[in-house]
């Protein structure tokens, strides 16, 4: 990953500190060392104060009953109580786990399939391809906003546009967003609607597939379907893998749309209680910061685990063209 350190010694600055040269190390390394850490200092400070220390602190808080409102003295060490409550005594926690898993595991494949399908349509240059690409990409910029979530909820409400559309076909709809069986579905649809970002990544990947492969396959009389299965998919597999990791992790972190749809409750009947929403309710509505910290660590471990699993399976289907197979 890092750049190579080997460089011709002639590029060494002519007036390096003598001490460094005596020790036989190129002077550049010493001066770079100071400069390097100076340039890195904002990031290092941020790593320490905004990331590392809070992470350790949240680990500590997860073993306490800290609640923000009272002062530090009233905070008590409760051992594994938060974790025990979470796993055995908080039904909403398991609802949140289930909701988040369903959301991520359904929305991600649908979104990637849509992204790949449209990317294939737009791959060959034609008049207006750029315009279509831009229009399909736009929803992924708007979709994460509160405004779009409001629009979505109203479109799928009892009197919303979706039901009016269904009524053309004589189907009577219902208030989809208030139905525990369908509320999450509308959120999944909103996530799939934002397929533009992975689509652009697929388009970039498709440009890298050598045309010669398709030409050779045509000479051999391969059908378009076989070309897709035997050339496009394997050649694109690193990009598919990349999108899969990214979108799965994004899927686990969904918050805004669920918050707006349920007015911050995760309802109806916990059906849109995303994990992050449950964490928010525990921490900022009920002031159980210790419990919320424990949830955060379980979340981190879960995401790490899922990512590891995806990476493991990736060995069996991701094809790197610089490899031997």
């Amino acid at each position, binding site marked *: 990953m890092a750049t190579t350190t080997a460089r011709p010694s002639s590029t060494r600055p002519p007036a390096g500190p003598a001490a460094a040269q005596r020790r036989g190390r190129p002077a550049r390394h010493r001066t770079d060392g100071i400069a390097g850490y100076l340039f890195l200092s904002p990031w290092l400070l941020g790593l320490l104060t905004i990331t590392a220390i809070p992470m350790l602190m949240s680990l500590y808080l997860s073993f306490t009953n800290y609640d923000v409102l009272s002062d530090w003295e009233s905070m008590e060490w409760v051992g594994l109580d938060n974790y025990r409550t979470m796993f055995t005594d908080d039904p909403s926690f398991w609802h949140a786990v289930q909701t988040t898993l369903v959301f991520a595991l359904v929305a991600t494949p649908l979104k990637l399939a849509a992204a790949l399908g449209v990317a294939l349509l737009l791959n060959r240059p034609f008049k207006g391809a750029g315009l279509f690409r831009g229009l399909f990409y736009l929803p992924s910029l708007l979709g994460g*906003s509160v405004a779009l979530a409001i629009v979505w909820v109203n479109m799928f409400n009892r009197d919303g546009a979706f039901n009016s559309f269904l009524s053309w076909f004589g189907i009577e709809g219902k208030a989809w967003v208030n139905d525990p069986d369908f509320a999450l579905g509308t959120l999944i649809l909103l996530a799939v609607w934002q397929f533009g970002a992975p689509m*652009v990544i697929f388009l970039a990947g498709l440009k890298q597939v050598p045309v010669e492969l398709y030409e050779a396959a045509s000479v051999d009389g391969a059908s378009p379907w076989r070309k897709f299965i035997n050339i496009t998919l394997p050649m694109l597999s690193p990009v598919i893998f990349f999108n899969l990791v990214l979108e799965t992790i994004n899927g686990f972190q969904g918050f805004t749309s669920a918050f707006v749809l349920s007015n911050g409750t995760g309802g109806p009947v916990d059906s849109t209680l995303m994990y992050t929403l449950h964490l928010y309710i525990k921490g900022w509505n009920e002031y159980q910061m210790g419990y919320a910290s424990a949830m955060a*660590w379980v979340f981190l471990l879960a995401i790490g685990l899922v990512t590891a699993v995806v990476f493991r399976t990736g060995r069996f289907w991701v094809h790197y063209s610089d490899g031997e197979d």
Partner: protein
Amino acid sequence: MTDLAERVAAPTAKVDQAVRTPGPWRSIAKHTGLILLTLVMLYPVIWMVVSSLRPNEEIFRSPGVIPDSFRFENYSEGWNALSSPFGHYLINSAIVVLGCIIGNLVSCSMAAYAFARLEFRGKKLWFAIMLGTIMLPIHVIIVPQYVMFSQFGWVNTFLPLIVPKLLATDAFFVFLMVQFIRGLPRELDEAARIDGAGHPRIFRQVILPLMLPALATTTIFTFIWTWNDFFSQLIYLTDPEMYTVPVALRSYVDATVSTSWGSMFAMSVVSLLPIFLAFLVGQRFLIKGIATTGIK
């Protein structure tokens, strides 16, 4: 529910044929399909704009997008429906966005220069850690971060939103800039070095001007992400005076239950206008940015 997804995914199999032998019919079919898909995709946005101009009783009557009458009062009513005029929240959001952009540009470019061009001990380790933090969910650190910032008395200020950006916590952009700087010819900074320039000068006068495209990509993504960001703004801004656009818009849902849908949609449109403008101006950088680094 899968209706849209099926419609989107269905053309996959036909694609190769269509592009391989572009007969006129295939081309027409492909264009028709794309136009239909575009209409489906843009329908929610169009519906929002049309609804923002409709009288209340018309919004939910038909799914059509041609309004019978225009009601521009929705905008003036929506603008003044909360405790402050909506412009107040737009300004708050603009302040946060501006602070975040400046923070990201300065701190991320400095870190990126160090990672891409300087040799120092521990660089590989720090670089690996930096890559690791890209995937770190904010939820893991938000609780103690909130505790810390509230001890500082920073709740209901913009500092908890801006200060982390001044400290390059958006590692995405560090990575994006590292990749960009690595693509610049080293001869340029070697030449400047031989002329006696130190690292601060090489950074400012050689590297920064050359990495303008990467800076533009960072600016525009920071703009859109910060403008849309809801979670941290919801947590840190509880005083209506300090509300940014997403938090204000959310409180609007409570305030106007079944009273004035039109004005709620009107403010939704207003809240998305800056994103739309950023998209128009910066589409090139957005597309390039996600294509090269895969960021969203």
